[in-house]
């Protein structure tokens, strides 16, 4: 072996990658060649120096700053795109140019950029509405909270109305529950025996996801934003119905929100599901015509929600925004701080769950109401025996806690479920938010 051959293979030797036969010949050469031996010694030192330097740099943590910059730059671009779209208008000839502008500004691939453009135009087309009336169907329980979905349940009809004239008024309704905001305040009625009624200010939602649909421009705008922020992906397809009317379908793929390490709320809400939302816009007017939300489950995709029809700018009967609350309705009372509130303030969710269920067990309704102001005397939890209280956990974007419990009812039936507790700011203690 000559010096050149030896030196070409020094790295392989240092890395332990030289083949046995080759290594033998190199060792032989190194024994007799002082220059190559010296070279090897220096390379070992150089290698150590490279490893040290790389080790120092591998602690570099610039990913957060880089990602923050990317998100900021994207937000700036979003504003510019909107200005460009506003400037371009609906002229067909300009549409192709608009798509190119968006590809350029968003950094989104062309397919997504055109979908983003459609969303932006859809938002613009819904910006100055007088009213909307949205007919939908949703897999849910007829009486339960508006945002709840239940994929095992059949479809329930849900209708939404909003008048944008001053004062803004809206209504949401499904068979067992209705909420009306008459311009002054919102009242929700749960149709049951007895009826329950809740009153809140004009901004009270009683729903986040469903109510958001009333602001068509804002939903489309929000979809555009989340696509640009990268939390969802977009696709645009075209469709023609039997009568030859063309639609644009924007498909949004979205991931469940919040930490679902404990998946209790997974697929119980649209936001806590991995889902596909397909917005259908009229190709000509760019107005939203429909929406289908498919939840991805282990067993395949399930259509969980659908906007069947939207009527824009129709004259709405004023009676839509009036709600007759039956005289026998039980009105919800907001919890207040108690004279001995400190004792309750200190309770962990587990302690609060136990105290609440034990109060029900003793049929001490006054005590039980400190946790669940709406609980009625004679509630099925009366006389209940606590079998087990589990460890509180959080799930999804819900800010409160869930406490697993197991109780034996007076009937002998064993119930296992989770109580939801939320810290009430005004009452300064944990209040039952559902789960019984």
């Amino acid at each position, binding site marked *: 072996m000559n010096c050149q051959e030896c*030196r*070409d*293979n*020094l*790295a*392989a030797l240092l*890395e332990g*990658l030289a083949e046995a036969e080759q290594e033998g010949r190199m060792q032989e050469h190194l024994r007799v060649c002082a220059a190559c031996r010296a*070279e090897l010694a*220096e*390379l070992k*030192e*150089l*290698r150590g*120096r*490279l*490893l*040290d*330097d*790389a080790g*120092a*740099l*591998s602690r*570099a943590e*610039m*990913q957060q*700053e*880089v*990602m923050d*910059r*990317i*998100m900021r*730059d*994207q937000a700036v671009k979003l504003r510019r795109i909107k200005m460009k779209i506003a400037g371009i208008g609906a002229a067909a000839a300009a549409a192709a140019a608009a798509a190119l502008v968006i*590809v350029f500004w968003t*950094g*989104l*691939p062309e397919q*997504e950029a055109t979908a983003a453009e459609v969303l932006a135009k859809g938002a613009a087309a819904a910006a100055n509405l007088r009213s909307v009336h949205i007919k939908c169907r949703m897999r849910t329980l007829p009486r339960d909270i508006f945002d709840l979905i239940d994929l095992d349940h059949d479809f329930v009809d849900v209708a939404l109305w909003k008048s944008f004239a001053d004062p803004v008024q809206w209504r949401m309704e499904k068979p067992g529950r209705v909420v009306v905001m008459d311009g002054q305040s919102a009242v929700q009625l749960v149709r049951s025996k007895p009826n329950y009624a809740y009153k809140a200010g004009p901004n009270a939602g009683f729903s986040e996801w469903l109510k958001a649909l009333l602001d068509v421009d804002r939903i489309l705008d929000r979809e555009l934003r989340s*696509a640009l*922020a*990268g*939390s*969802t*992906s*977009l696709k645009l397809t075209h469709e023609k119905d039997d009568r030859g009317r063309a639609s644009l379908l924007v498909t949004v793929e979205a991931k469940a929100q919040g930490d679902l390490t404990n998946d209790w709320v997974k697929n119980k809400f649209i936001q806590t599901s991995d889902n596909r939302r397909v917005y259908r816009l009229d190709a000509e007017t760019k107005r939203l015509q429909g929406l289908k939300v498919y939840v991805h489950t282990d067993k395949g995709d399930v259509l969980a929600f659908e906007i069947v029809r939207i009527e824009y700018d129709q004259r709405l009967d004023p009676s839509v925004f009036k709600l007759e609350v039956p005289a026998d309705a039980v009105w919800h009372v907001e919890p207040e701080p108690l004279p001995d509130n400190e004792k309750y303030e200190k309770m962990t969710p587990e302690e609060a769950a136990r105290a609440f269920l034990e109060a029900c067990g003793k049929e001490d309704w006054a005590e039980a109401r400190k946790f669940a102001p709406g609980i009625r005397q004679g509630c099925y939890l009366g006389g209940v025996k606590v079998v087990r209280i589990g460890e509180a956990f959080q799930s999804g974007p819900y800010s409160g806690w869930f406490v697993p419990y197991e109780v034996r009812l007076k009937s002998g039936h064993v119930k296992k479920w989770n109580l939801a507790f939320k810290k009430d700011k005004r009452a300064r203690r944990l209040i039952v938010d559902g789960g019984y």
Partner: protein
Amino acid sequence: MSETDAEYVARCLDGWPEAFRGLVERHQATVLSYLTGRLGDPEQAEEAAQECFVRAYFGLRKLKSPPSFFSWLLGIAARVAKEMQRSRRRDRDIAAAAARSTSDAGSGPDLPLERAVAELPEAYREVVLLRYYGELTCAQVGERLGVPLGTVTKRLSRAYALLRETLGRHGSPGQRQEAES
């Protein structure tokens, strides 16, 4: 290594910018070392590295061969470095950089070494950067660059020899501080 560069790139192009974080995590040390070598100032290098990643993100659609993301990224880094060199007000900044690097010499980056790496011909520079700053094995470097293992070790050997030569001109290993002043 869970996902390849090409997979991360595909996810970014699919509308998931978060996937880019994986690429930053994977390549930041390498890019930083290269830029420190080129610019001679760790702080400027970090600024340049961030700029390089941001440009890469917004230019991702122009990347023709996603498996070659790293080589492409280094190309961007080279352009950013050139622009920065051109734009910085030479005398004052270099003086400041020299002052910084001398005071940092003990614990901070090994500037003469990084400069020597940055000056290597491209084929040699890539293997050194990937092997050391990218923390890949020689076999992985081969896969990344699409060359046989034997070629990687030969290039490394030659790169070592070139590095030794360059460093020898300015100061031998272990004489970093003298080399810098």
